[in-house]
């Protein structure tokens, strides 16, 4: 409960998703706390995934370059890429949700018609603002639980692309994390291969003239041992192999179906925030997005009222000082 209370009073969401507290000023404390909790969770999830990506970059950097500084650089680089890509996808989802909300809540034509009958040319700015706020409150009340249909054919395509992108990232991260989880066992297996008499005998076997299959094995054995040879001046830091592919093969053979399960778990981990944003009512149609849409709608209305007021003033001025009928109406020849 303490965890909930803290998460519902902090506002981490403003650093990533721009959850400004003034947007939620008119919302009940309980709902406000809930929205903070929701967006704080999303922010922490986001940073967790980015952290995984940074670790993945470091792991691959160590495996490929066997150098801490380069590995850290790659970790930061991969983390930055994932940061941008995940942020982009989160925002794309939120933008779609926001637009849906905006279009659902906004039916401006009947509203504008109402003002055509009123004498708004004499309204002050304050009066226009009050009217706007009144409309905003009405709209808020009318859309307590906004209801809209997400589905559009284009969303299938965009969602597919987003999911594929997320799966690619999750696949990269999953493999590197598996290397990290099992690097001790992998190193033991690699050492076993390195000292195996069969593979050593095969590598020392001279190439034959008539047996291409055997020659392939000899070359593969020689390559395998070469990849496992440690440079005395640059000893292995992480995985005791110079080949990522060889390490991957060892990992796949050793984990078997567990590797598939771990890959799926990582995919699930990366897809969870995406699905949440897409399907949870607290994001898609949540109070924060609703308030953001209301602010934008009230801005539109406010500027409509101000511009309409000025238009009418100008029209009145023209009618009083010029022959408006002659200017505006084209006479028949």
């Amino acid at each position, binding site marked *: 409960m303490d965890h909930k209370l803290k998460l519902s009073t902090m506002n981490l969401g403003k650093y990533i998703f721009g959850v400004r507290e003034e947007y939620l000023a008119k919302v009940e404390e309980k709902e406000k706390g809930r929205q903070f909790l929701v967006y704080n969770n999303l922010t922490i999830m986001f940073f967790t995934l980015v952290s995984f990506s940074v670790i993945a970059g470091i792991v691959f950097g160590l495996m490929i370059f066997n150098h801490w500084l380069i590995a850290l650089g790659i970790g930061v680089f991969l983390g930055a890429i994932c940061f941008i890509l995940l942020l982009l996808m989160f925002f794309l989802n939120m933008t779609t949700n926001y637009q849906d909300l905006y279009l659902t809540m906004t039916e401006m034509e009947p509203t504008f018609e109402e003002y055509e009958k009123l004498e708004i040319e004499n309204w002050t700015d304050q009066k226009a603002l009050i009217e706007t706020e009144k409309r905003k409150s009405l709209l808020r009340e009318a859309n307590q639980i906004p209801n809209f249909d997400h589905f559009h054919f284009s969303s299938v395509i965009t969602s597919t692309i987003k999911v594929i992108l997320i799966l690619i990232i999750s696949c990269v991260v999953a493999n590197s994390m598996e290397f990290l989880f099992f690097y001790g066992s992998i190193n033991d297996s690699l050492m076993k291969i390195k000292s195996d008499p069969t593979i050593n005998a095969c590598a020392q076997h001279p190439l034959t003239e008539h047996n291409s299959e055997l020659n392939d*094995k000899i070359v593969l054995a020689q390559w395998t041992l070469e990849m496992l040879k440690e440079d005395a001046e640059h000893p292995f830091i992480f995985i005791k192999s110079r080949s990522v592919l060889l390490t991957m093969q060892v990992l796949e053979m050793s*984990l078997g179906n567990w590797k598939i399960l771990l890959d799926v778990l990582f995919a*699930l981990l990366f897809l969870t925030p995406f699905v949440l944003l897409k399907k949870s009512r607290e994001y898609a149609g949540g109070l924060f997005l609703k308030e953001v849409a209301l602010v934008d709608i009230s801005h539109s209305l406010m500027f409509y009222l101000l511009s309409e007021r000025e238009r009418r003033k100008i029209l009145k001025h023209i009618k009083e000082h010029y022959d408006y009928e002659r200017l505006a109406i084209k006479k028949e020849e």
Partner: protein
Amino acid sequence: MKRNFFDVSRWVFWILVAIMGILTLPYFKNGLYNDSKINEWVKNFDTIQPVPLQDTLIEIDTTGPVQDTLAYAFKVWDWHDFEGKWHSIRFKFPVGSLDSSMINRIHSYEYKPLYEHDKRLLRDLIRQMKDEINEANLDYFGALEYVCSSIQDIPYTLVVSEPDGCPCEKKFGSFSAYCRVQPDGQGCCEGVMPFGVYAPFEFTYKETGDCDTRALLAFTILKEMGFDVAVMVSRSKHHSVLGVTKIGGPNNAYGRNAFGKKYYLWELTNPDWRFGMNVSGNDWYADLE
């Protein structure tokens, strides 16, 4: 309900993160990692493996459904190995192989064409021997003994090129005029042109052969299995044996090829002869490798 969706998803996410966290700790993941498949994978590097051959004898009619148009005959190749265990292989060969092998032998003046020609005829025998070796999980030396014992188990028969070469008296014994396997190893085959050696297939078919015939068959089988072997010849001893690498030590007899590579000698003319027993002569050289 919608809130539940958020709560459930949130817990799914954090439970997954917790699982990943636990996996970074030692001891919790040992059950997932099993490197027994690596041991299987390493076995693939065993040099005793099936050898793909271009079999020109199998004619394939490409205009119609693919089918083997050759007729096959069968031969049983059986023997006691050095441990006294009985082995029996029923292998197939294309009808007409014996004539084909003999005609090729008559026109060949070296060991190599005999090997090149007959390895195709013996393909099924070699395949089955490889299968047995793999099934028995024999090591390098065990596989060598398996093959050599199948040849050494056949009693010796002298093979000479002269048309009236049998019966005869040689330094190493008296030989009768019967060109067939005799328990005392005194059989003799004459007129085997051009230089008194049967081709490998002829030997497996007739089961009669002397030193170089045996060495050549052993070479054919083992070479096709991927072993580094040679047919070793001594001019001073008028004798041939099998040469093998990778085994043997300072006390074992050996010969060399033209580049100085060592082949340890394996006498094949007698079932009692095992690798490591002395082979006399000091001018052994690799005639075919």
